[in-house]
């Protein structure tokens, strides 16, 4: 096999194309609802393997060649965390699900009273910590390209060039599959599936190289153990401090790395997957580490002096002339690097958009202008963040150059994100932690980390040698490598010890000295006691919010359909019909949580807070929550459940009763209305016809009066027709004609008959949506559409009246929305518009023409019922809006 630069590029591109296909197929399956197996414990475990980056794939061998057994600490830490899942991980996952957590910044900010500054602080730490890590992946990809092509046909690859194009390609992939939409659950089936495939590829590749080295070059298990014993690298070098410290650090990083938190908590959707991952993940990393030492030992033995041990995995097959195996190893490393970058970028982009962009954006707006299009802004911010994060990684790669050992960059990142650990653990296990404490700990920890580890990593340009030697301004005790005079320690260990010690101390002390706000206490109780059954927590005690405003807000964040579903379901739960539930505290809390799934807890809280006036939660409310015993909790929870049930029943009964009395009253009103509606044209007819019978009228007058008589007679006929139609429909004697046709044609026909164009009403349609083949009574359906369109033409009071017709499908249902841009129908009258003779009291004056008798919508409702569908007023659309829903194919039984 002849390997050229071009083959390598072609193979990489082919591999990426395959990943695209996998991600695309998984996304499609998931959206079609057939994604069950996409969410198996196996896939979950494989997705956790993004812990093993290019650092593991290449760097571990280099690490082992330098420091012996120490490379294992990086994998032992996470293994212990997963084996001990019952302690921490299980709780994090449960909290993540209960609180709709989107990222680690969201979890910490949410725990400490949905605090915006804390979310931003965690985000900044994460960005600073992970940037070097992303740079490391770019470096490893370009290094391997270079190694591969060294001395080959086509010349040595340009390292910068490869890194740049890799970064661009990864940005495209991530934007395509990671930020396609704002998923309220923040789950990405396509990405998870692609990551799982990459996990298999890298494991297989490393095992293949290992097997080749042990049995092909090393002389089997016995031979390799012999070689290891004789090897020039001592396995145990007696550095106990680093052994313990690094194990702890990697365990901490496993929990706090944004990408690990993302796959571990955010993408998890079943506790039971954890039970499998608890042994399968340690097994995976064990297999990944198994052949590291043999490869290192054999590499030192057989490769020329001075070869970079970070590249042994690749160099061994190449030097032995196994091009295919080398290519496989290359793909393994490529997989490790790309999957890490993709997930890390998504996690960081989510954090940046939710915790930095969204709060900033909200703070520049007054409550009443809450976002014309929040959704679009967030998505845009997320895409820009993807680009930004990858650019930062590329810049860091450029600055540090490619001289640094892979493992040291990785450890800098670990120490950075580990600063989140005290706030995280303190938050979920200790109710006493406060936002001020968490903020202090995070700030101090991050500062110490930056001073002692991060900034020195940029080299002498950032921290000059004199500062390293003597401290800044000659302050001896501030030397980056010997803080407070603690000299002689390993620099990494020195940084980790000081930063985490000061971090945890500040967190604890400030928490003890400050008093939390009510919302912090509430959240603290919910997080720490997440396994308690009854959750009394309420973020909103009472509400002055108009539900319709909330609905408008929810539509802007979640999208129209999802928001209407949420509100409709809640209304049903409360025993109400329609789309507008009461804004009970429980509902507000649920709504806020749904919003939090898209924009993070802090932003969601701020959004809801802008609409819900009055204090969110008071100390009195907390009294009920705080100091509760388990008994009271359980007891009151059961009572609450019972009374909620009774309330629901009572409500349904009350509504039914109201309806009945209303019906009786309506029967009377109906008769008197019929009398009125018939007598009115009759009056004109009688009066004019007796005038016509007299002499002395001018021919012009006579002609005019005769025309009025005719018009009024027609009006009577129309009324009688409508009445007849309504009664036939109500008795169910109507026979439906089942016809096949296109929805678009039916709408065309209806708009023509309704005379919409004549009325100056602009109609907005989407032909693509309307290309739906339906099979129902098309004439009856057209009758409904005519009614809705002519109502809009008659009653829409906008300066430039518009009617928007939108169509979508859900299940076997076709949903057609008619929404105009007028002032809509006031809430109290929405209840009655579908009743007979319901002409609205505030009928626009200045239109005295004898129009319909107010039977139109009543007939529509009956027609839709016959067609097996429904018609309803759709709130929160700006103007008057109606939703018509019907089955795509009329059931045979209904005919």
């Amino acid at each position, binding site marked *: 096999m002849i390997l050229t630069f071009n083959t390598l590029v072609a193979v990489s591109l082919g591999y990426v194309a395959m990943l695209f296909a996998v991600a695309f197929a998984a996304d499609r399956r998931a959206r079609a609802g057939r994604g069950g197996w996409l969410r198996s414990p196996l896939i979950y475990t494989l997705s956790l393997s993004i812990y093993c980056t290019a650092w593991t794939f290449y760097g571990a061998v280099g690490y082992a060649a330098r420091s012996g057994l120490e490379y294992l600490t990086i994998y032992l830490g996470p293994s212990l965390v997963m084996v001990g899942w019952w302690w921490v991980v299980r709780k994090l996952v449960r909290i993540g699900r209960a609180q709709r957590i989107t990222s680690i910044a969201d979890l910490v900010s949410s725990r400490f009273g949905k605090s915006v500054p804390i979310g931003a602080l965690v985000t900044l730490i994460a960005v600073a910590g992970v940037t070097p890590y992303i740079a490391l992946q770019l470096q490893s990809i370009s290094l391997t390209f270079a190694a591969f092509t060294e001395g080959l046909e086509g010349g040595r690859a340009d390292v910068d060039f490869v890194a740049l194009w890799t970064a661009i390609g990864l940005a495209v992939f991530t934007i395509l599959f990671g930020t396609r939409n704002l998923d309220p659950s923040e789950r990405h089936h396509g990405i998870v599936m692609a990551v799982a495939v990459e996990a298999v590829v890298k494991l297989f590749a490393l095992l293949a190289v290992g097997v080749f080295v042990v049995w092909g070059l090393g002389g089997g298990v016995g031979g390799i153990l012999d070689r290891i014993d004789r090897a020039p690298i001592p396995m145990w070098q007696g550095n106990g401090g680093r052994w313990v410290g690094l194990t702890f650090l990697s365990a901490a990083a496993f929990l706090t790395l944004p990408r690990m938190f993302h796959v571990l908590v955010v993408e998890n959707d079943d506790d039971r997957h954890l039970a499998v991952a608890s042994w399968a993940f340690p097994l995976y990393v064990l297999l990944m580490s198994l052949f590291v030492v043999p490869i290192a030992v054999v590499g030192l033995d057989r490769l020329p002096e001075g070869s970079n041990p970070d590249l042994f995995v690749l160099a061994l097959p190449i030097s032995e002339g196994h091009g295919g195996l080398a290519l496989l190893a290359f793909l393994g490393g490529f997989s490790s690097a790309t999957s890490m970058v993709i997930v890390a970028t998504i996690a960081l982009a989510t954090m940046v958009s939710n915790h930095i962009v969204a709060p900033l954006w909200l703070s520049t707006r007054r409550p009443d202008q809450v976002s014309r299009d929040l959704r679009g802004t967030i998505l845009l911010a997320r895409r820009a963040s993807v680009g930004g994060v990858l650019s930062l990684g590329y810049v860091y790669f450029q600055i540090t150059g490619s001289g640094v050992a892979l493992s040291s960059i990785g450890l800098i990142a670990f120490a950075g994100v580990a600063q989140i650990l005290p706030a995280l653990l303190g938050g979920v296990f200790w109710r006493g932690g406060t936002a001020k404490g968490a903020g202090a700990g995070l700030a101090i920890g991050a500062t110490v980390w930056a001073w002692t580890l991060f900034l020195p990593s940029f080299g002498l340009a950032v921290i000059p040698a004199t500062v390293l030697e003597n401290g800044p301004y000659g302050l001896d005790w501030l030397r980056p490598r010997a803080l407070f005079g603690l000299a002689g320690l390993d620099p990494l260990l020195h940084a980790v010890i000081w930063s985490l010690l000061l971090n945890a101390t500040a967190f604890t002390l400030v928490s003890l000295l400050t008093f939390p706000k009510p919302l912090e206490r509430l959240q603290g109780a919910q997080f720490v006691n997440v396994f308690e059954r009854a959750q009394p927590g309420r973020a909103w005690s009472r509400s002055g919010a108009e539900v319709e405003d909330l609905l408008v807000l929810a539509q802007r964040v979640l999208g129209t359909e999802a928001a209407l579903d949420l509100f409709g379901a809640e209304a049903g739960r409360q025993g109400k019909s329609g789309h507008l539930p009461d804004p009970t505290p429980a509902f507000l809390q649920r709504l806020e949580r749904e919003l939090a799934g898209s924009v993070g807890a802090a932003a969601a809280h701020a959004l809801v807070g802008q609409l819900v006036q009055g204090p969110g939660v008071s100390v009195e409310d907390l009294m009920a929550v705080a100091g509760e015993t388990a008994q009271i909790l359980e007891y009151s929870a059961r009572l609450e459940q019972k009374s909620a049930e009774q309330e629901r029943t009572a409500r349904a009964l009350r509504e039914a009763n109201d309806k009945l009395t209303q019906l009786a009253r309506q029967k009377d009103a109906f008769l*008197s209305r019929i*009398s*009125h509606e018939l*007598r*009115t*044209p*009759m*009056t*004109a*007819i*009688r*009066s*004019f016809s*007796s*005038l016509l019978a007299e002499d002395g009228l001018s021919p012009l007058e006579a002609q005019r009066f005769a025309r*009025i008589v005719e*018009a*009024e007679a027609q009006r009577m006929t129309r009324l009688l027709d409508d009445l007849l139609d309504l009664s036939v429909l109500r008795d169910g004697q109507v026979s439906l004609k089942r016809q096949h046709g296109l929805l678009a044609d039916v709408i065309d026909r209806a708009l023509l008959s309704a005379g919409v164009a004549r009325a100056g009403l602009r109609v907005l349609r989407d032909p693509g949506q309307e290309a739906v083949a339906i099979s129902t009574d098309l004439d009856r359906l057209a009758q409904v559409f005519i009614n809705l369109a002519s109502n809009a033409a008659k009653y829409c009071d906008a300066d430039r009246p518009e009617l928007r017709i939108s169509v979508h499908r859900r299940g076997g249902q076709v949903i057609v929305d008619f929404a105009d841009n007028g002032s809509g129908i006031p809430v109290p009258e929405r209840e009655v518009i579908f009743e007979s003779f319901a002409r609205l*009291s*505030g*009928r626009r*004056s200045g239109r*005295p*023409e*004898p129009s319909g008798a107010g039977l139109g919508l009543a007939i529509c409702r009956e027609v839709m019922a016959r067609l097996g569908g429904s018609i309803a007023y759709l709130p929160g659309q700006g103007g008057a809006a109606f939703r018509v829903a019907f089955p795509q194919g009329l059931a045979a039984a209904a005919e």
Partner: protein
Amino acid sequence: MARRVLLIEDEPNIIEALSFILTRDGWTVHTHADGLTAAARVKAGSPEVVVLDAMLPGRSGFDILRDLRADPATAQVPVLMLTARGQEKDRELALRLGATEFMTKPFANAEVVAEVRRLAGG
């Protein structure tokens, strides 16, 4: 000087019919179609006779009648109430509220003219 009658009604064709027959009888006919401002219009125009429809947009004829009778300035104005519902309880309600006369639609042209004349004379 022609005598003035105020016609409070919202159906255009009925307005036309009544205007025609009353004008022919020598009345100056003013019309008003909105229920909300009807009482104020009566007060401002001080017509000899008011012809009031029971069903109006904004405010019902019965409510307008109650307003008229409650205001000393208009308490004595003769009111001929017209209704298309023609139920007995409507007639009772109208008379109790102080309508001078009550007629159901459809009406005979001659009867309306005769009633308006009688109310103006009495």
